[in-house]
């Protein structure tokens, strides 16, 4: 049972990459990439978890209570918002590709030349 979080992280990565490789629509590809990125969040949280620890906010708990690791949370915090904007860049590229080639299928992107 102790391997469960790491197994879920590995499973999400594999499923996400499978979705990217066998995708037939550019927007489906971007959303599968979001699933693959979520595997890193699960992995980081699983590394930083302390059994019996609470959230690392000391507003209402006395200093000295065991808390989970705040460093991995700081790494993930900015990453979640940055992932959204990087997905926006990928979607903008998809719009350009569709306008240029007339199809949203990644398999047909290189064929048509305007």
């Amino acid at each position, binding site marked *: 049972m102790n391997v469960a979080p790491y197994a879920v992280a590995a499973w999400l990565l594999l499923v996400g990459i*499978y979705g990217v490789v066998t995708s037939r629509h550019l927007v489906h590809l971007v959303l599968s990439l979001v699933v693959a990125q979520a595997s890193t969040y699960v992995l980081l949280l699983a590394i930083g978890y302390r059994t019996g620890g609470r959230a690392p906010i000391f507003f209402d708990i006395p200093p000295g209570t065991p808390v989970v690791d705040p*460093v991995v949370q700081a790494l993930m915090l*900015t990453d979640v*918002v940055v992932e959204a*904007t990087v997905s*926006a860049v990928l979607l903008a590229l998809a719009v350009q590709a569709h306008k240029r080639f007339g199809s949203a299928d990644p398999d047909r992107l290189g064929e048509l030349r305007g």
Partner: protein
Amino acid sequence: MSPAVRRAIALAALAGLGVALLVACLGLPDFGHPRGPYATAVIPLSLDHRHVTSAVAGVTFDIRGIDTLGEELILFSAAVGATVLLRSQRAEEDARDAIERHHELAERTPAPVRGLGAALAGPLLVLGVYIVAHGQLTPGGGFQGGVVLASAFLLVYAAGHFIRLGRVKPESLVEAAEAAGAGAYVLIALGGLVFAGAAMENFLPYGTTGELLSGGTIPVLNAAVGVEVCGAIVLILSELLDQAMLRHEDA
């Protein structure tokens, strides 16, 4: 190669990767016992040295502040990149057509939707500012509050109203806000170099722990990040909508 062959090769390769990952997982530390002294050493540093009650904010903006600077610049360049890509093929007629089309759609929006959107936009703005301001005390901060602020703008648009600004061209106002946020963060980092001897070092008074104005430069950094994230997301959304979300008064 045909899709079926590609799928078979992908499954075989992913099975190999899965086995390798599982073997690697067995070498990780036990779940629930984080190894490494960094986790416990960081907490008294945030609480006593930096006077913030949220250890995550202390790590994000002080102890690992350079990482946050890099991430914010990634966000800035991603927003600029998406804008450049979406604007490069946009003609003037497209923007005007989009605004006309959204005018017609706005007339067909049912009254309860318009009323609900108008009623919720104000509380959402207040909630966003609250989340940004309390970043060093409770869960929150510039990144989360910035997205909530951007969603307030989106709600106004979805309720059938346009965001009317004055004589300033709306897209330049949003771009200026985004650039100001990113620039303010860099300036505060350099201010640490100028006033306190090391980049990102704190140079404002600390205040008392638990008050709204505690933590030195952390509330100011939170505000800069909030403005920048809000500007970036509003810019991307309005570009995807062909700038029908913001418009200026026809003088």
